[in-house]
């Protein structure tokens, strides 16, 4: 296999500074490759330096001392005594004493440098009940031991799939318990694609933002609305996007939305020098007091630092103003191609506020961990108009174990993955009348409710 991998080889190799995803079995972790930095993953610690220059997707084993070594893939089938197996478990007594090796023995074997698969072989050889187990039970036993003692890790390129599964498995609270299949729905229902202009409001650690950016491929623009001090982007960084992707990303604070809608948002350049001159005055006064040359030097130094900091602050403020202006320019046209909301905030006001920035005939998707807030959104939208094809949904997800004669759904299943409200915007005029005309409630029910409300009026 001497031929080199032609397809964008450089892109396919692990480098320092890259964000990668470590995988061991079904467990994932996102880390950045740094020089001689200790990484802890699945109760093991190691350094990633030996991985640099290798291709993504490479499997490694962890040597004593924490360095990575390329894993040579030999398909391991443990040797079992002449395929001896039992028919069923009627005589197998689980007294916890069938394994002759103690925990200390196994530690010793590990210290002797025995590889994972060799340890598994030892465990089989020292189990009194192994030969009595059924073939299926033997396979299950081997699989379980392999999972525990074979400590290979694979280094992968980040993707929405891996990061969404990682967050949902490790820290669901950080992403409002958004399950990966629900995220899949958001991206597809929202018609997220290259070249569009999407508004995102999320408090999912940046995972939703990152997945939207991945689907846009660096084309178009994403405006991230943020609630407080600044936008959260940690999860987005884990995607390891090339730098030009960041140029498509804008941010806009929610607290300025009303001003923008009213047309009163102040984007003019401000003179920040007033604060600096005050400090200068107080400094000037104290200058009168001491004439000591050392003191003089230190004061001059402090003065210089103060000016430097003031200058940096000025530059930062200007940058911030420019960013605000560019985001405002994108929003002002009220022609965004889509809206994605996934946060711990009550979705109703967020949705009603941000929908104003979306063009007609464009999709929007709102995620909420709970159902009732979305029912409120639905009701409000029906009253107000401007949206059609409203749907409140959630998805049911089930994994299967597929093995010969042992195929069945997996025993534990996800209880829920959150709820979505999706719809399409339309031109707002007369939409209200349209919605009453095309009410989804059956006629009989509507008449009854009308009767109730009219009798209220008459008795007032």
């Amino acid at each position, binding site marked *: 296999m001497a031929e080199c*991998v032609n*397809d964008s080889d450089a892109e*396919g190799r692990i480098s320092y500074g890259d964000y990668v995803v470590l995988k061991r079995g079904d467990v994932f972790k996102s880390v950045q490759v740094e020089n001689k930095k200790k990484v802890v993953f699945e109760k093991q610690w190691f350094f990633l330096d030996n991985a640099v220059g290798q291709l*993504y*997707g490479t*499997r490694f084993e962890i040597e004593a001392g924490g360095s990575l070594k390329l894993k040579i893939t030999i398909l391991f089938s443990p040797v079992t005594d002449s395929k001896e197996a039992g028919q069923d478990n009627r005589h197998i007594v689980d007294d916890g004493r069938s394994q002759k090796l103690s925990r200390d023995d196994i530690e010793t074997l590990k210290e002797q440098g025995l590889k994972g698969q060799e340890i598994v072989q030892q465990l089989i050889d020292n189990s009194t009940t192994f030969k009595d187990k059924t073939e299926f039970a033997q396979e299950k036993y081997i699989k379980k031991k392999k999972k525990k003692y074979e400590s290979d890790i694979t280094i992968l390129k980040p*993707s*929405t*799939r891996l990061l*969404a599964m990682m967050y949902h498995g490790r820290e669901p609270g950080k992403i409002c318990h958004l399950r*990966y*299949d629900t995220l*899949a*729905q958001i*991206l*597809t*229902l929202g*018609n997220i*694609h*290259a*070249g569009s202009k999407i508004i995102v409001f999320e408090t999912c650690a940046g995972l939703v933002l990152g997945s939207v950016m991945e*689907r846009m*491929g660096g*084309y178009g623009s994403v405006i991230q609305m943020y609630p407080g001090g600044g936008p959260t982007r940690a999860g987005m960084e884990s995607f390891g996007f090339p730098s030009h992707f960041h140029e498509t990303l804008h941010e806009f604070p929610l607290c300025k939305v009303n001003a923008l809608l009213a047309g009163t948002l102040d984007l003019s350049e401000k003179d920040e020098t007033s604060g600096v001159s005050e400090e200068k005055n107080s400094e000037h006064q104290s200058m009168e007091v001491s004439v000591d040359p050392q003191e003089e030097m230190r004061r001059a130094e402090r003065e210089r630092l103060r000016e430097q900091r003031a200058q940096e602050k000025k530059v930062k403020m200007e940058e911030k103003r420019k960013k605000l202006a560019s985001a405002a320019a994108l929003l002002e046209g009220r*022609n965004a*191609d889509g809206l994605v909301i996934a946060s711990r905030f009550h979705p109703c006001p967020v949705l009603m506020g941000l929908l104003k920035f979306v*063009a*007609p*005939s*464009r*999709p929007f998707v709102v995620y909420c961990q709970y*159902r009732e807030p979305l*029912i*409120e959104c*639905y009701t409000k939208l029906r009253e107000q108009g401007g949206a059609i094809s*409203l749907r*409140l*949904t*959630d*998805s*049911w*997800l*089930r*994994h*299967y174990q*597929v093995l*010969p004669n042992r*195929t069945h759904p997996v025993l534990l299943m996800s209880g829920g993955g959150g*709820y979505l409200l999706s719809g399409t*915007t*339309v*031109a707002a005029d*007369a939409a209200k009348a*349209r919605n009453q005309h*095309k009410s*989804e409630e059956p006629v009989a029910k509507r008449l009854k*409710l009308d009767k*109730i409300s009219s*009798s*209220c009026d008459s008795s007032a």
Partner: protein
Amino acid sequence: MSFVEYSEIIQEGDVVIIFLGHESMMPIKVQSGAQTQTRYGVIRHSSDLIGQRFGSKVTCSKGGWVYVLHPTPELWTVNLPHRTQILYTTDIANITLMLELKPGSVVCESGTGSGSLSHSILRTIAPTGHLHTVEFHAQRAEKAMQEFKEHKVSHLVTVRNHDVCKDGFGTTAIADAVFLDIPSPWEAITHAKSAMKRKGGRLCSFSPCIEQVQRTCEALLDHGFEEICTLEVLLRVHDVRTVSLPLPDFGPEEGSVDSSQMASDVGQEEVPNTGNTSVICRTAKPPREMAGHTGYLTFATKPLN
């Protein structure tokens, strides 16, 4: 208009979606001088559509109105003419995520069928990716090619008319992802593997029957695929309703508990002066029936060579 790029104004030759009301839509091809009949009257393309903004309300001849929508793969999926059973948005969304599709991805697909998934893939991989789709039925392959042209996406797709199990995808070592929706996917695994890039890739097979899934998983294992995972996903719709629930009459009681007390016990607002009082609940209920099965999705990773 195109299925991979938004535009603002309707033009001649566009495919647009007419929204008539709840769960009622139809696709039409905009042509100068043409007319379309709807239950609300006639839509005249030249005056009512061409030059109008997508999302506008259009008044038809009988006085009723409709909305004109920009096509999307999701709208297309529920409105396209079926030549075969199709994949719906719920499965499509998961396939897209699990195959890690994005702009620039190269995808191999078989069978093309009615093009439901194809349109969604094209939208996701545009503008720099490519879809190689194989359909063994000559007329369906032809119809698919026609539609891709009309929808202005043919530069992103190559349709081939042959049997993928015998002749593969027509290319090798170029795909980031392979999708199979055929009767015997296990027969196409070798070809799928060779179509995928050497650095690895993702595979998905969609099968309605568990027996097909079992044979496919076995074949995947034999060919060295990893991370083999089978799942199914179903969408549950919640119909939002405002319901009125009557309160019972337990007869008069000492210390008179009146109906407003009962209503507040239930935690809802009372509807006054209706004799037998009721409370209003804003809730959502499931539909009477729902799609219980579409197919099993089996995913796998082809590892680095």
